C-alpha cells in the first residue's frame, strides 16, 4: 500500500514538472559525499558559463540554455536515475564527471542517441569514433595524461629514464586503473621500472602505500586520485618528506581543494592540466559583470577562477561551441541531440576562436573528426605555490606519444566493438 501511495504521488509530481522548450544541457553534478568538495566547483563553472551566455548573448543562436542539476553523489545507481529522469526533458548532451557513471551511460546514450562528452575522464578508447559514435573525450584522456607526464620526466632527465623508478599511486577503480597499461608500455619503451600502488576508494587509507614508497625510494610518484584521496596523498607525501616537485598528479589531482588543506608543505607539488588557471583571462571580466555581480552565480561565485571551476567552465565552453557548430550545420537554432553529435564531430576550436571567446591559450586546439573523438590529447603541467596560494603553468602544451597510444586505443576499442557487436563506421 505504501508502494502504491508513493507511486501515485511520484507520478503526480513527475507529471507536474514543467516542459522545457529551451536547449537543455543537464548537469549531473555531485555536491555531497567524499568527492563533493571537488564536484561542487566543477559544477559551478559548468553552470556559470551557460548563465553567462544566457545573460550576455541571450543564449546560443538566440536559444536560451537550461542546465537542470541532478545530484549523483558520484554513485553509479544515482547516476542512472539522474540520466533517466533528465533524458525525457530533451537533454542534448551528458557530462557526468565520473568514469564509473560514464561506463554505465556509454551503451545507454548509444541506444538513445544522445552525445556523451567526457573531457579528461571516462573511457579512454572512446577516442576511436569509429566504434564510439556517441562519445567524445577531447581535449585529452588518461592515456594522453600518462604519456605527457612521462614526456615531461624525460625532458627533466635529458631524454633518458633508464633505470629510474616511478611509482603510480592510483584510485582503485576504473578511473585509477586506466593509465596502467599505457605506463607499462611506456616503461618498456623508456626502461624505467613502474610500481603500482592501489588505494581503495574513497582513499583516506593510504599509510601502507606511502610506507612502501619510503622504503622503495622511487624517483618520481605519479598519482591518479580524486576527492579526499588527493589531499590525503599529498599530506602523506609531506609526512615521509617525499620531494614535492617529484610528485605529479593527473589533472583531477590538481586543484586548490587538494593542496590547500595540506598547507605550506604542499609547496612545489605538480599536476597535469589541460586548461588554464587563474582569472587573468578576458572572459572572467564578463563573468564578473554579467553573472557574479548580479548575484546569478552558483554559490555566489566564491570559486570563480579555481582550477576545477575553470575546468567545468571549459567543458561548458566546448559544449557551447559544439552547439554553435550544430546550429550552423542544421540551419536552425533548435537543434536535436543527434544534430549536436554532428556538431561535436565537426568541432574545430582554434587558438583564434579561443581568443575570441576571451580565453586565449586556455586550452589546446580541439579538432575532431569521424574517427577522432579525442582531439590532440595535449596537456601541460602546473605547479602549486603554497605561499601565493595559486597554481602556475610551468610548461607549454605538450603532445602525447601517439606511437604508444594509438595501438592501445585500437586494441581496447576493438575489444569493445566485438563484445558489444558494433560494426566500426567511417
Amino acid at each position, binding site marked *: *500500500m505504501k508502494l502504491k501511495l508513493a507511486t501515485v504521488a511520484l507520478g503526480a509530481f513527475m507529471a507536474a514538472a514543467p516542459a522545457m522548450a529551451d536547449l537543455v544541457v543537464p548537469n549531473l553534478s555531485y555536491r555531497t559525499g567524499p568527492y563533493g568538495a571537488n564536484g561542487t566547483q566543477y559544477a559551478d563553472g559548468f553552470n556559470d558559463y551557460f548563465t553567462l551566455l544566457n545573460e550576455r548573448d541571450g543564449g546560443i543562436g538566440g536559444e536560451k540554455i537550461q542546465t537542470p542539476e541532478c545530484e549523483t553523489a558520484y554513485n553509479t545507481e544515482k547516476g542512472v536515475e539522474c540520466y533517466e529522469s533528465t533524458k525525457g526533458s530533451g537533454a542534448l548532451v551528458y557530462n557526468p564527471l565520473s568514469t564509473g557513471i560514464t561506463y554505465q551511460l556509454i551503451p545507454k546514450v548509444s541506444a538513445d542517441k544522445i552525445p556523451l562528452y567526457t573531457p579528461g575522464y571516462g573511457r579512454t578508447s572512446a577516442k576511436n569514433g569509429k566504434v564510439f559514435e556517441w562519445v567524445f573525450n577531447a581535449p585529452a584522456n588518461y592515456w594522453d595524461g600518462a604519456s605527457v607526464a612521462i614526456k615531461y620526466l624525460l625532458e627533466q632527465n635529458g631524454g633518458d629514464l633508464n633505470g629510474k623508478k616511478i611509482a603510480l599511486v592510483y584510485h582503485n577503480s576504473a578511473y585509477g586503473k586506466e593509465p596502467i597499461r599505457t605506463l607499462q608500455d611506456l616503461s618498456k619503451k623508456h626502461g624505467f621500472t613502474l610500481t603500482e600502488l592501489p588505494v581503495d576508494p574513497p582513499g583516506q587509507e593510504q599509510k601502507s602505500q606511502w610506507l612502501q614508497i619510503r622504503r622503495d625510494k622511487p624517483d618520481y610518484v605519479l598519482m591518479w586520485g580524486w576527492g579526499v584521496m588527493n589531499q590525503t596523498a599529498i599530506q602523506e607525501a609531506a609526512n615521509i618528506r617525499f620531494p614535492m616537485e617529484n610528485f605529479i598528479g593527473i589533472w583531477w589531482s590538481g586543484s586548490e581543494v587538494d593542496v590547500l588543506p595540506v598547507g605550506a608543505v604542499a609547496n612545489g607539488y605538480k599536476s597535469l592540466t589541460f586548461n588554464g588557471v587563474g582569472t587573468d583571462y578576458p572572459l572572467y571580466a564578463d563573468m564578473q559583470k554579467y553573472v557574479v555581480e548580479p548575484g546569478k552565480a552558483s554559490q555566489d561565485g566564491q570559486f570563480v577562477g579555481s582550477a576545477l571551476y575553470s575546468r567545468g567552465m571549459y567543458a561548458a565552453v566546448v559544449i557551447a561551441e559544439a552547439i554553435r557548430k550544430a546550429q550552423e550545420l542544421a540551419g536552425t537554432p533548435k537543434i536535436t541531440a543527434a544534430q549536436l553529435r554532428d556538431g561535436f564531430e565537426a568541432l574545430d576550436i582554434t587558438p583564434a576562436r579561443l581568443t575570441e571567446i576571451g580565453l586565449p591559450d586556455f586550452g589546446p586546439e580541439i579538432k575532431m573528426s569521424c574517427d577522432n573523438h579525442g582531439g590532440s590529447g595535449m596537456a601541460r603541467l602546473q605547479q602549486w605555490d603554497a605561499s601565493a596560494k595559486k597554481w602556475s603553468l610551468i610548461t607549454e602544451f605538450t603532445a602525447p606519444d601517439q606511437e604508444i597510444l594509438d595501438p592501445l586505443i585500437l586494441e581496447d576499442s576493438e575489444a569493445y566493438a566485438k563484445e558489444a557487436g558494433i560494426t566500426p563506421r567511417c
Partner: protein
Amino acid sequence: MFYREAGDFKTSYRDDGQTFPIRLDRWGYYAILAVAFLVVPLVIDSYWANAVLVPFLIYAIAAIGLNILTGYAGQVSLGTGGFMAVGAYAVYKLMTAFPGVPIVIHVLLAGAITAVVGMLFGLPSLRIKGFYLAVATLAAQFFLVWLFNKVPWFYNYSASGQINAPERTMFGWAVTGPATTASAKYLVCLCFAVALAWVARNLTRGSVGRKWMAIRDMDIAAEIIGVNPLTAKLSAFAVSSFFVGIAGALLFAVYLGAAEASEAFGINKSFLILFMVIIGGLGSIFGSFAGAAFLVLLPVFLKNVLVAQFGWPTDLAAHIELMIVGALIVFFLIVEPHGLARLWALTKEKLRLWPFPH
C-alpha cells in the same frame, strides 16, 4: 468493516495453512499480481523501469535472501555486497564465455555459483555466532571485492577493470544491453522476484524453514530435538547466497549494464540490504518487499519532491534526504522494532475490528 473475515470459513487444514488465509488478502494478492504482470508492462517507461521498479525488485530479491539467513536462520551477515558481486561477476564470465545460452540460465547458474561461495564463507558459522560471525562475513565482503579488483581474469583483462554487459536475448527479446526495452527489463526482474518469493515462502514454512527457525531460536535445543546444525546452517547460507547472487547478477546485467566491484558492491550495499531487512521485518517475505520499497523509493520520491517541486538546490536536498531517511529509520525502529511487516499486520488487525475495537 473495511477488512473482514466474516463468512470466510475454512474446512480443511490445507485451507487454514495457506499463505493468505483471508479471502480479501488473497484477492488483493491476485489483483496486485495481475496489475504487475498485465498492466504495468504496457505503461512502463524507461524512467519508471530504471529508476524505480527494476531496482526495487532486485533489492527485494536480495532482501529476501538476507532475510532467510538473518531473519529465519539467525545468522547475521554483513557480506551481502560481496555475494552480490559474486553473482555479478559469475554472470559476466558466463555471458561472455557462452554467448549462445539464454541469459536466464546464466543468471540461475550465477546464483548457484554464489550459493557455493556462500556455503564456503558459511563454514565458520558452525563454530561462531552473533557478532563474531558478522565479522567473519564482513571479511568475505572485503575479500571478495578485493579479489574481483585484483585478478584480471574476472574482468576479462579489460583496461579499466570495469565489466560491461553485452546484449543477450531471451526468446528473441533483448534482456541485457542498451537495446533492452523498459518492459523487458521489468518483466524479467518481476518473474525472478515473484518466483523466488514463492520459493522462499514455501521453503520457510516447510520443514527446512522450521529447522532454520529452531536454530535461530535456540541452537542447542534444536540439536537436542534432532535438527542437524551443520545442514541447517549451511543450507541457510546456500539458499540465501543463491538469492543474493541472483540479485547481484540482475543488478549488473539487467539494471546497470556495467559495474565495478568496489563501487557497486561495496560495504554500503551490505548495510543497505541489512537495513531493508531490519526495517521491513526480520523473518517475513512481505517485509523484504516493504523494506526494499522503503529504501529504494523513498529517496527517489524525496528527491522529486524537494528538487523538482520545491526547487531546492540539489546538495541541500541530498543532505535533507539523508536526514529524513535516517530519522524515519530510527522512528520506525522505536515505534515498531519488528518492522513494516509487523506494522502492516497490526493495521490489518485493527481494520478487522473497526469500528468496535476491544
